[in-house]
């Protein structure tokens, strides 16, 4: 990824952080974006912004281009939230907040980055973070707002792919399954969690953020030059059951 200029949202933790690190280790220049930076000394260059704010997104994408020496040609939309809430208890505020961060965010950041690339006549690659929850329902961890937002991300990804192919911009998504990140709730009950892994994940273990990052970086790399509009599950085979 040497010579690539990457922007990673949600880079403060989990899949975003792992992706930023992997991109940097492969030679890309990387700017991370997060609402707040939990680490005292961030491992990558970072900007603070809320991806649901159009003004903050616009200024952050411009600032990132200055720092990177040109428009970002790799965008990883990893900012996201996950909260378990049965439908009957789900409030409209909770619905709106999840939709804003998980779906409006990738739209706003993706639009700003693609506009910069198109204006400069540069090609690029976008990777959005879907979820296996966009493909199958989950009775044990009800989160309709999250699942709907991630299904929206997959539709957004296909539309980005079709509309922006003319600019040489590819857009793909990964669909992580149960990944060992701060977002994971499955193992809050270790016994039930292990039982789920035995029954629901053919590879019988949690995935790691590094394993998702490896797929994201592949999708952004020249090895994936003819892939666009796809959603790749990274789930140990759970959606194959």
């Amino acid at each position, binding site marked *: 990824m040497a010579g690539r200029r990457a922007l990673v949202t949600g880079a403060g933790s989990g899949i975003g952080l792992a992706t930023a690190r992997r991109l940097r280790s492969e030679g890309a220049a990387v700017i991370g974006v997060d609402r707040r930076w939990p680490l005292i000394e961030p491992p990558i260059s970072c900007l603070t912004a809320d991806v649901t704010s159009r003004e903050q997104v616009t200024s952050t994408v411009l600032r990132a281009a200055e720092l990177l020496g040109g428009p970002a040609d790799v965008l990883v939309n990893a900012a996201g939230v996950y909260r378990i809430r049965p439908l009957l208890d789900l409030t409209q505020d909770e619905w709106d907040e999840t939709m804003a961060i998980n779906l409006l965010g990738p739209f706003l950041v993706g639009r700003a980055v693609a506009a910069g690339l198109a204006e400069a006549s540069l090609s690029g690659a976008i990777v959005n973070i879907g979820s296996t929850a966009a493909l199958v329902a989950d009775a044990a961890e009800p989160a309709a707002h999250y699942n709907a937002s991630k299904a929206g991300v997959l539709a957004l990804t*296909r539309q980005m792919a079709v509309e922006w192919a003319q600019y040489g911009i590819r857009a793909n998504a990964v669909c992580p399954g149960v990944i060992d990140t701060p977002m994971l709730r499955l193992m809050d009950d270790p016994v039930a969690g292990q039982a789920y892994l035995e029954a629901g994940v053919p590879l019988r273990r949690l995935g790691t953020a590094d394993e998702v990052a490896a*797929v994201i970086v*592949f999708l952004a790399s020249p*090895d994936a*030059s003819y892939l*666009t509009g796809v959603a790749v599950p990274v789930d140990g085979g759970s959606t*194959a059951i």
Partner: protein
Amino acid sequence: MKAVVTGAARGLGEAIAARLASDGASVALIDISPDVTATAERIASAQTAGHVSGIVADVADEAACEAAIAQAASALGGIDALVNNAGIGGPDTRVVDTAFADFWQVLQVNLGSAFLGSRAAARLMIGQQSGGAIVNVGSIFGQQGVAGGAGYCASKGAVALLTHSLALELAPHRIRVNTIAPGNMATEMHWDELRSRAAASGTTLEHQMELVVASVPLRRHGTGADIAGAVTWLLSGDARYVTGQTIGVNGGVWLS
């Protein structure tokens, strides 16, 4: 990596084998065509890291496929990666005009070879207790049917579901199995199909190529390097939590 690629004398199989070899893998190329020997020599002369050899065999024949996989394992010192790429185009006729033998042949070659190759390699990998990865080459025409392509579509759709079942059966042995689904590729098989379309419609091959390119958002045919990049990734540790999936490599075609 000790890799076997079937249907490797030319086209996508050759591109996959060449990429794996250039990445340092030892590779056994299998093909029904004797040309596979020359292809293997050509790849071997371009790189020096691993062992590269060609094996002439019909992988749709049970005994021949078993023998070829055993020969490959012997030459490589084991097998930890298999790409079931061997395949043929089907009859380009409507079902009502298609002889059963022609329909059955494409299933036997495209699906039968994937079953036989996977079974033979999986038995070896389980015995080695070292895990492994299998990539089956499906097709975008295994994800959606087309009129006049029933045999080919059925064979490639079946390959994807064979993959699905294999992934579940082999996961406990740390063997991953995935399908790659190429779209419109710049291969002789695809040009043959376009020549057939051109003849049927009274147009030229060039016109048919333009029609296809116009339908692909990335505005080009896929290449062997495009497929090799995705296959190499699926076989690598970078895909170690990915199994049972069908990955489209199609330039975004059919998204809209």
